[in-house]
């Protein structure tokens, strides 16, 4: 579904990504982990072109998104993204947050969009919050709404950029539970996370990034019990 070839990203002289090649298959759940500054968020953000790669190619299905001729707006409609700090639209109600893009971008009718929106709110357990404004919600609730908002576009892939890092500890679980159940539906997911337990339990593959390079790419059982690189061993020692 997503293929990445020799991806480089520089900010001026700073090299953030140094030639990453990998792919994500349909239905796969991939956890991207690594120390801070390793480039994992930048890597994820390249996948929907929120960051423009300096060099390298990325395919979404059979479309090369790094090709100038590709309509990136069209591609983004199929790639949901969830941010660390939610970025809900504060001036719109919860339901309007969910229906805005389906109506304005996909051209759904208000009734259709609201039907989908209400179903999704039920799925994330927030049906009673449909007419609230985001500022009235807790962090965990906001993030569940943000997940529902991304799902409302009925994307083929979901990208998560540290979705629980800004949450109070007691709210992490409710968000991870929603993501878990999403994984069980067969959604293709790429998740930048520090939740090792979650990565171990839910991911099909773990990508370990360090210093802008893909150091390990292995199934979680293998990665967490028997990491190959010394860098990953060090990292896991600190985490556990």
């Amino acid at each position: 579904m997503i293929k990445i070839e020799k991806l480089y990203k520089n900010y001026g002289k700073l090299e953030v990504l140094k030639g990453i090649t990998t792919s994500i298959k349909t239905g796969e759940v991939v956890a991207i982990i690594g120390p801070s500054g390793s480039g994992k968020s930048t890597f994820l953000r390249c996948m929907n072109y929120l960051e423009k790669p300096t060099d390298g190619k990325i395919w979404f299905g059979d479309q090369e998104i790094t090709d100038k001729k590709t309509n990136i707006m069209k591609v983004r409609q199929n790639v949901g993204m969830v941010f660390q700090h939610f970025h809900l639209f504060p001036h719109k109600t919860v339901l309007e947050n969910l229906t805005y893009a389906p109506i304005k971008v996909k051209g759904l009718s208000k009734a259709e969009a609201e039907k989908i929106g209400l179903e999704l709110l039920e799925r994330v357990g927030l049906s009673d919050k449909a007419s609230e404004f985001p500022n009235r919600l807790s962090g965990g609730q906001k993030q569940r709404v943000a997940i529902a908002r991304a799902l409302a576009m009925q994307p083929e892939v979901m990208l998560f950029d540290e979705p629980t890092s800004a949450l109070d500890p007691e709210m992490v679980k409710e968000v991870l539970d929603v993501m878990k159940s999403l994984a069980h539906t067969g959604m293709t997911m790429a998740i930048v996370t520090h939740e090792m337990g979650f990565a171990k339990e839910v991911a099909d593959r773990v990508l370990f990034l360090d210093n802008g390079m893909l150091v390990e790419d292995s199934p979680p059982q293998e990665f967490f019990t028997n990491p190959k690189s010394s860098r990953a061993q060090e990292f896991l020692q600190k985490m556990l």
Partner: protein
Amino acid sequence: MNLDFAQFIPSLPYILKGVLVTLKIVLLAGVLGFIFGIILSLFKISSIKVLGWFADLYTSIFRGTPLVLQLMLIYFGSPQIFGYQIEPYTAAVLSFSLNSGAYISEIIRAGILAVDKGQQEAAMALGVPYRKMMWDIILPQALKNILPALLNEFISLTKESAIVTTIGVMDVMRRSYQVGAEYYSYFEPLLIAGLIYYVLVIALTFLGKAVEGRMRRSD
């Protein structure tokens, strides 16, 4: 102090008629200035450099010269600019809207820049095109934050409109001045004019508070 308002009572309707003239100028210039301001502010944050330069030059000219000069240039210069003499009312609306557009564009630009960058990213990630993103997501949030500053601009526009007197528009100011001339007594009619402007500004303040309250319902 010897004040005699009684003798001016017959002239009150005449002065009050000027309120309509003032309001017509201020409302139209306010709306047009707001529209110019939005367009100029979008130019200023645009990635197309020429648009930014144009908007900056525009702002520096209209902020850098007196409003009364702009008014007179447009009115007395109209035969040379447009080829015919325009109405004083038209000149007033034109100069006020062009002038406040420059100020409002700076206010809106600040408002747009103050909106969290994550809002733009969230909209982009959903595939929302730039124009819709600006119109539906960024500008409404920017407007909420800049409402007090906008209100200031509309208040000063209301008061500054008194300078249309200089090109002979029959607004509140000019009418009270003329009444003063008629009675050889300027103090009272000018006080009346002051009261009228004050009431207008207070009304505007209440209107602004109401709008702000409505926009803050999402807090």
